[in-house]
């Protein structure tokens, strides 16, 4: 049998090599066994008929659900002979929501549709739906989304089979976003949080009063609608509808719903998880979880999966939100924890009581009463000179005041890149202050012509919009230092910051007495902030001229050091050995001139980390920098990178979150946070963080790079490749992005694309320097270990900064305990002294 099979197979293959019309002759000539000949002939005939037989996996045919489940309806479609579909709005787990025009009443409504395949899981779906629309209609409250009516739609021409019938509900059309969208964008400020609590609790009370429980209260069901007369109108949606779909759970004979949750376990009360009786206090529990998330940014026990999170709420005591947000007001803490009592009878029994407990005699309780009082945003000073060339001066003065105030301990001063996002949009400083969650804002105007310098400032209380202090300076340009000192001094006095005499001395220490040098320094920073290769060179030129005039100007030396270091990171075609020694030299000079200069310590730390691969020394420098200047966002960011390099991921994230708090809109800090989350294995959070960053900064390459990496780590290779491709486009094929892209190609099985990229980079590297790490990454992806190790060796020789992440970057994990890798690790982390002397 086996023998025959093998013979038939050989014959079949040989015959296939022949032209079709000669196969029969070939068989006759080469096989004497007639039954074998017939067998092969038959197989050849089948082969000719095969077509696509078995070429598509049934799973692939099942394929992309969202494709096959694309919107059910398109704009213009007529539904139930009454509604015209205007646009698709959203897709949920159960169905889809459209904006529709009611042709009878001539108004726009939301149409919520349940997909027929979902409807078939629930027996009597229609009846249940009807009953629940009935219930929902009983709840009338301005903060509850109004439900109008239920409709059935069958496509004309099709049978009225129930499976083909669409059931949909018409509801009030809301414009805005959900709280879930809002939370994804960043912290919720106290005003917003209180608005949500007060309006949601009103909605819940109204529903409870008529005997309707929500049962699935979650940020995705809370709408922030911009149509409120005074601020945001908060609207709770999906009242009662959750119940309709949830009820089958009690019926244990139903195999679909048995032991499953159709609500969202992430926001469910313990009694709901345990399938016990629900009361108004169950909705209060969900509200408590939402409050927890609004004030801390996370949910308690936010673990890998929603079910795990939910389970831990059953078994473990809820940790105080103050463990996450230490500055949270105690009243808020108490209220949240009371909502989250495991025993429903120990919670607030009505939602209104939650709100009541948050109000004191003097009005609502703020959630960060102490810490936030000491917080300020210096908004970009406006250049009123009518001369765009003077932008550097207004920007520079702003930055100098930020820098001075940043040295005050316990003071939260919003960083440069965050406040500068508001440049040119300063109409409503109070509102900006609210968005940044600071107690006060400083606005200023600068007018300069020749030697004449006019500066006007105004310090505004964000809480009530009143002016705390204002001043108009009309002086000579040479007085710029005194004016700046005076502004900083007034702010610290007006904000009642008690500074020790040592702190005061330190605060007002001037970096240079020379107005020209200062001006050049400001120009240098102006260009440094632009972060392009050309601007780095221009910035370096200005810094150099500043120190030429004032050779004791430590801050300008530190500016030079940062220019070289950052340029080395962003421009992988310049060998580190060319830029970094200059960085080292200028940072040392800055330190020698002023050992108390935070910036100089931070500059030193990042060189220790990226050039000497010496995280231990770097850590000391960063800690010193942060002690000297607690609000120095970049020092926190670099320290976070340093901790990640040492694989202390938790501490790394903590440090980066401080940086983010100080500089919430910085593209770099936000991207690096995403990257370090990914290094630490928190891929889901990394993806979320990178996407948030991309919402603020469209197509920012570093966020795309780490987004790709996180997808790759989750095994989502298609998404990974796409993100890296976008990153490469955004960064104009910066070799770093090509390395990431090549690695992801290889992992996605696109080996030829990966090889092409590798060859491209190889050719480039033969012509001029390019960071060998990127070559190594692609080679690793392709399992070409020999060549990967050769590239890594070259990267050690070239002292490439990324090498410090050898133990953190998940792409190197596959090298594990390979002897060659261990040797490289020894060379990288072995003896910094030797490297330095080399």
């Amino acid at each position, binding site marked *: 049998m*086996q023998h025959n099979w093998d013979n038939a197979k050989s014959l079949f*293959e040989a015959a296939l090599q022949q032209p079709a019309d000669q196969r029969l002759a070939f068989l006759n000539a080469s096989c004497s066994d007639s039954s074998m000949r017939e067998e092969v002939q038959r197989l050849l005939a089948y*082969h000719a008929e095969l077509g696509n037989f078995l070429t598509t996996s049934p*799973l692939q045919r099942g394929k992309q*659900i969202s494709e096959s489940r694309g919107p059910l309806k398109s704009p213009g479609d007529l539904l139930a002979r009454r509604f015209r579909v205007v646009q698709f709005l*959203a897709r949920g787990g159960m169905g889809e929501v459209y904006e529709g025009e009611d042709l009878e009443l001539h108004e726009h409504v939301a149409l919520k549709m349940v997909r027929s395949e979902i409807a078939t*899981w629930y027996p009597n779906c229609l009846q249940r739906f009807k009953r629940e629309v009935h219930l929902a209609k009983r709840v009338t409250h301005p903060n509850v989304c109004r439900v109008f009516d239920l409709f059935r739609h069958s496509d004309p021409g099709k049978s009225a089979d129930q499976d083909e019938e669409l059931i949909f509900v018409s509801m009030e059309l809301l414009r805005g976003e959900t709280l879930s969208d809002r939370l994804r964008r960043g912290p919720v400020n106290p005003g917003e949080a209180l608005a949500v609590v007060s309006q949601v609790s009103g909605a819940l009370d109204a529903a409870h009063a008529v005997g309707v429980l929500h049962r699935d209260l979650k940020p995705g069901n809370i709408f922030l609608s911009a149509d409120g007369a005074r601020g945001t109108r908060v609207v709770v949606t999906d009242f009662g509808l959750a119940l309709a779909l949830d009820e089958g759970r009690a019926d244990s004979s139903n195999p679909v719903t048995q032991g499953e949750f159709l609500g969202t376990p992430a926001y469910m009360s313990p009694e709901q998880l345990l399938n016990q009786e629900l009361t108004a206090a169950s909705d209060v529990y969900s509200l408590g979880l939402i409050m927890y998330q609004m004030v801390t940014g996370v949910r308690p026990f936010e673990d890998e999966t929603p079910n795990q999170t939910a389970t831990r709420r059953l078994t473990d005591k809820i940790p105080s939100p103050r463990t996450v947000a230490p500055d949270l007001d105690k009243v808020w803490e108490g209220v949240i924890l009371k909502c989250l009592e495991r025993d429903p009878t120990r919670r607030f029994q009505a939602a209104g009581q939650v709100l009541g407990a948050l109000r004191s005699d003097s009005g609502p309780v703020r959630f960060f009463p102490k810490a936030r009082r000491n917080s300020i945003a210096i908004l970009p000073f406006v250049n009123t000179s009518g001369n765009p060339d003077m932008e550097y001066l207004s920007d520079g003065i702003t930055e100098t005041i930020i820098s001075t105030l940043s040295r005050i301990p316990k003071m939260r001063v919003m960083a440069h890149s965050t406040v500068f996002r508001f440049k040119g949009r300063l109409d409503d400083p109070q509102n900006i202050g609210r968005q940044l969650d600071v107690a006060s804002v400083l606005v200023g105007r600068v007018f300069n012509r020749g030697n004449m310098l006019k500066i006007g400032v105004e310090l505004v209380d964000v809480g009530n919009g009143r002016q705390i202090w204002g001043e108009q300076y009309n002086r000579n340009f040479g007085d710029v230092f005194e004016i700046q000192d005076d502004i900083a001094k007034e702010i610290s006095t007006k904000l009642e910051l008690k500074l020790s005499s040592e702190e005061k001395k330190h605060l007002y220490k001037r970096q240079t007495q020379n107005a020209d040098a200062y001006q050049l320094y400001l120009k240098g920073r102006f260009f440094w902030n632009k972060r392009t290769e050309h601007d780095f060179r221009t910035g370096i030129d200005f810094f150099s001229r500043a120190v030429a005039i004032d050779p004791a100007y430590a801050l300008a030396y530190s500016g030079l050091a940062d220019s070289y270091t950052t340029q080395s990171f962003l421009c992988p075609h310049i060998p580190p050995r060319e830029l970094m020694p200059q960085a080292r030299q200028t940072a040392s000079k800055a330190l020698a001139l002023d050992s108390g200069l935070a910036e100089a310590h931070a500059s030193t730390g990042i060189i220790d980390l990226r050039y000497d691969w010496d995280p231990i020394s770097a850590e000391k420098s960063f800690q010193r920098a942060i002690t000297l200047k607690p609000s120095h966002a970049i020092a926190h960011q670099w320290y976070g990178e340093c901790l990640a390099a040492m694989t202390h991921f938790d501490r790394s994230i903590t440090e980066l979150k401080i940086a983010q708090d100080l500089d919430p809109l910085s593209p770099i800090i936000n991207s690096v946070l995403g990257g370090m989350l990914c290094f630490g*294995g928190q891929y889901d959070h990394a993806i979320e963080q990178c996407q948030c960053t991309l919402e603020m900064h469209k197509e920012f390459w570093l966020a795309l790079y780490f987004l790709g990496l996180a997808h790759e780590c989750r095994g*989502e290779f298609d998404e990974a490749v796409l993100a890296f491709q976008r990153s490469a486009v955004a960064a104009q094929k910066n070799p770093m992005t090509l390395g990431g892209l090549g690695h992801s190609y290889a992992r996605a099985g696109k080996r030829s694309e990966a090889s092409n990229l590798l060859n491209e980079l190889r050719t480039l590297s033969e012509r001029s320097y390019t960071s060998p790490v990127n070559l190594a990454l692609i080679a690793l992806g392709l*399992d070409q270990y020999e060549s990967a190790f050769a590239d890594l060796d070259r990267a050690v020789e070239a002292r490439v900064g990324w090498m410090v992440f050898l133990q953190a970057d998940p792409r190197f994990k596959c090298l594990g305990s390979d002897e060659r890798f261990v040797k490289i690790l020894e060379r990288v982390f072995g003896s910094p002294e030797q490297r330095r002397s080399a």
Partner: protein
Amino acid sequence: MDGVRGEITLLLHRMGKGDSDAEERLFALVYCELRRLARNYMRHERNEHTLQPTALVHEAFLKLIGTPPINWQNRSHFFAVSAQVMRRILVDQARRRLRKKRGGKNRPISPEEVILCNYDDPELVMSVHECLLRLAEIDERQSRIVELRFFGGLSIEATAEVLGISPKTVQRDWNYARAWLYGQLKDGHVYAA
């Protein structure tokens, strides 16, 4: 979670040595995770995602293993086992569908079935499955090739990598196995239970 990860690695290792208990256990773990994932996908609003069943099986695996299996040996196992898992899921659900079709208890379709079995031909799956059992007795390698290609959705090149043979060999075996299976189906070796 770490416990499970450790177990998976061990199971993959044991499976590589032909331990069928290990295969059973691994399958149970992956299938369980897969159902959980599928339900989550259905429940949550993940409209930015396109859901591909193959990707879902891989995701289930990765969730269990922790990181993508990078070393060569494990990656082959990974694809091989994924294909086996998918085959079993498809067969399992095709069987149920056919039972329902023949007037068995009218059991509602579960969310994971909607995701995993959005195909229309349970008979084909059952027939291929049964013929493959016979093919495995005659030509083990050909049956594995069909399993990886048809159930696992792997390309010729990937199949060759998993089996450690050349793509050319895969292509030749694939041609022959397909013709043979086609004949079996055409000549009435059709699933009938």
